[in-house]
């Protein structure tokens, strides 16, 4: 599965290509689901459980931001992606734990209740895959930001998403 296509090397460090294509897709779907859910809740029954529904709205916004950030993947967007994806990881763990301890802390369920149970645990798995992917595609040489996006014409050839060999 190496020589997939003509231009992989250039896209190899981009968060939205290769495996990242799939990641962004799943994020996008979750974002749509969260938007749908929260607009429905806000429109029809916000007063019933303001905390839960505010949380739903917050998670929707974060999912949208994460989707855009991962799709764009420039130096700035990469920072946004780290923050939003990290926020989701914390959010799903915190809300999941809270809902496990006391099922009705928020008055109603949210996307993150029961560790994302209502969404096939996708909200639980996704942020960690996202963090892994951000780490995996991080710009090398420089630390963290910058990386100047144009630079990465590195020798290391293809395999944007080869399963095992940890790229250093």
């Amino acid at each position, binding site marked *: *599965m190496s020589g*997939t*296509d*003509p*231009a*992989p090397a250039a896209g190899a460090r981009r968060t939205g*290509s*290769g*495996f*990242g*294509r*799939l990641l*962004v*897709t*799943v994020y*996008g*779907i979750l974002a*749509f*689901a969260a938007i*749908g859910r929260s*607009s*429905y809740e806000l*429109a*029809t029954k916000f007063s019933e459980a303001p905390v839960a529904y505010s949380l739903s709205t917050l998670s929707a916004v974060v999912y949208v931001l994460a989707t855009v950030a991962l799709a764009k993947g420039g130096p700035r967007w990469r920072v946004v992606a780290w923050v939003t994806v990290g926020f989701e990881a914390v959010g799903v763990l915190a809300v999941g734990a809270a809902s496990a301890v006391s099922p009705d802390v928020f008055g109603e369920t949210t996307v993150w209740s029961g560790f994302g149970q209502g969404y096939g645990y996708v909200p639980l798995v996704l942020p960690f895959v996202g963090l892994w992917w951000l780490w995996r595609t991080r710009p090398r040489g420089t630390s963290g930001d910058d990386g100047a996006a144009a630079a990465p014409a590195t020798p290391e050839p293809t395999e*944007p*998403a080869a399963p095992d060999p940890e790229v250093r």
Partner: protein
Amino acid sequence: MVLPLLIVVLLACAALAGWALWFVVQDRAVILKQLIGAAVVEALVVVQAVVAGVLMVTRDHPVDGPLFWGYVATALVVLPVAAIWAFAERTKWSSVVLAVAALTVGFLDWRLWQIWGAA
């Protein structure tokens, strides 16, 4: 909603997903014909939504409107966006994306059926 149409949509989604997964196995990217296939699925979902709307009005079918139409909107948005997104990628991940999108639409359609019956 009517059962035959549901089955047609589900089968169409499954077919599109199967086609895309076959391409994944072959390490190929999405091709134009598959986008046309996606357009067909999309058209079927539109037809289904229209039929549901007509039934809602004429037979006064009780349904949680906002919930139902929210799902319809999501189901209609997913495939075109995902198709464009998939087509821009020229590796097998392109096909993975299309497969995921097709399965998602199928799932949403199933949820629509449940919501339709639940009210």
